[in-house]
Structure formats: C-alpha cells, structure tokens
C-alpha cells in the first residue's frame, strides 16, 4: 500500500496491508509535525507533492526494502495542511523477525526523506509561510 493522503493518516490500514502469516515482527514509524521548525512558532506544515513521481518513488523504496530485508512495506504521506501533532508520514514494515522489520522501517523513512519529490512549507502563527526547498533565504539547505 503506497498512498498520498489529503486527510489524517491511520495506521490500521497500513498494518493490515503488511500482515503476513509468516512474519513475526511488524515495525511502524510516524513522522509528526512539530513546533520547533526554525524562526517563529510553527502552527502547521503544508505539504506539496509531485504526485506521479512521489508515488512511484515511494513504491520503489518499498520494493527495495522488500528485496533487502524480506519485508512487506506500506507507506502513506500527507499532502496539504498538517497541524502540529498530526502525523505527516506513516510507514509499516513486517518481516520474519524483528531485526529485519526494524531495519526495513528505518530504510523506508530514511530513503523517502532523501528521494521523494515532496516539499514542506512551514506555516507560522503570524501567517507567514516558508518552503523548505533549497531556495528560501532562511532555509539552511539553500545554496547561497
């Protein structure tokens, strides 16, 4: 199960999607929106995705985790507005035993963060917004 979701994420379908009678371990990760994202007080994040490539890249990462760890993987990522405290991304991974389940879950979120064409914009309590996309003047990732 690979999905982009405009609404709140639910772990239950992800866990169901990776259920396997031969797997003894299931690991899950939630990335949650937090307040401390740089200057000012963040009240939420806004996510934008290049949907076609985000879905195929997430599927590719899941397939890699499957091949590398023998894991079943499910991933869902929010698009649109996500309030502080809500999950922005959810990953579930099952495998025969817990080392592979944990490793697959970690691999998927690490690779997704590195590769998926998805961008977040911080929304501050004064109404200001700032993309984290390498071009904002106050973005530490910006090349200047």
């Amino acid at each position, binding site marked *: 199960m690979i999905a982009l979701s405009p609404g709140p994420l639910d772990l239950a379908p992800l866990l169901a999607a990776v259920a396997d009678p031969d797997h003894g371990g299931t690991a899950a990760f939630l990335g949650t929106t937090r307040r401390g994202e740089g200057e000012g007080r963040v009240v939420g994040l806004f*996510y*934008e995705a290049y949907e076609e*490539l985000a879905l195929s890249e997430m599927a590719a990462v899941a397939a890699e985790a499957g091949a590398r760890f023998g894991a079943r993987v499910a991933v869902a990522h929010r698009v649109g507005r996500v309030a502080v405290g809500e999950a922005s991304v959810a990953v579930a991974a099952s495998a025969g035993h817990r080392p592979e389940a944990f490793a697959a879950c970690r691999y998927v979120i690490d690779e997704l963060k590195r590769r*998926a*064409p998805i961008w977040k914009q911080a929304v501050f309590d004064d109404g200001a917004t700032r*993309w984290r*996309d390498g071009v904002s003047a106050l973005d530490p990732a910006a*090349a200047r």
Partner: protein
Amino acid sequence: MAHAIRVTVRLFASLRDAAGADRVDLSVPAGTPVGAVWGHLPDPVRAVGLPDGARFALNHEWTLPGATLRDGDEVAVVLPVSGG
C-alpha cells in the same frame, strides 16, 4: 531556424508560487536538453534561482539534464526535497 517543439514544465514549492501556476507550457528548439528549459521559464520563476541540489524528471521519471527533449514531453524541476 530550428524546428520548435512544445513541452510542459511542472513547477513546485517556491517555483510554483513564483509562476502562479503548477505548470508552464513552452515552445523550445528541437534538440533542447532537459536542463535548458530553465532558461526558457518566465522571469519571475528564474528570479527564484536554481539551487545546486535541483534535479529533473522527464515524463514522471528521473532524468539527467542532458537528455534530449521531444515534442509533447513533460519536464519537472525538482527542488531539494523535504518530505517525510
């Protein structure tokens, strides 16, 4: 004069904000490489600047900037990502 081809450029995040649209249609010379679409984008978009970590996609697949464009292609300018 070189034959012209039509391509669409998908834009995201700061580039989308600058363009006021999520895509721009361009007419470029046949043989134009993917990376060269940057120079054909509207001034407000190019004013944002293209950071070192930017990548390109062609018809929903990762591509190198040197790949040759064909009529009807869709390019995406992929700024450094921040999902997850």
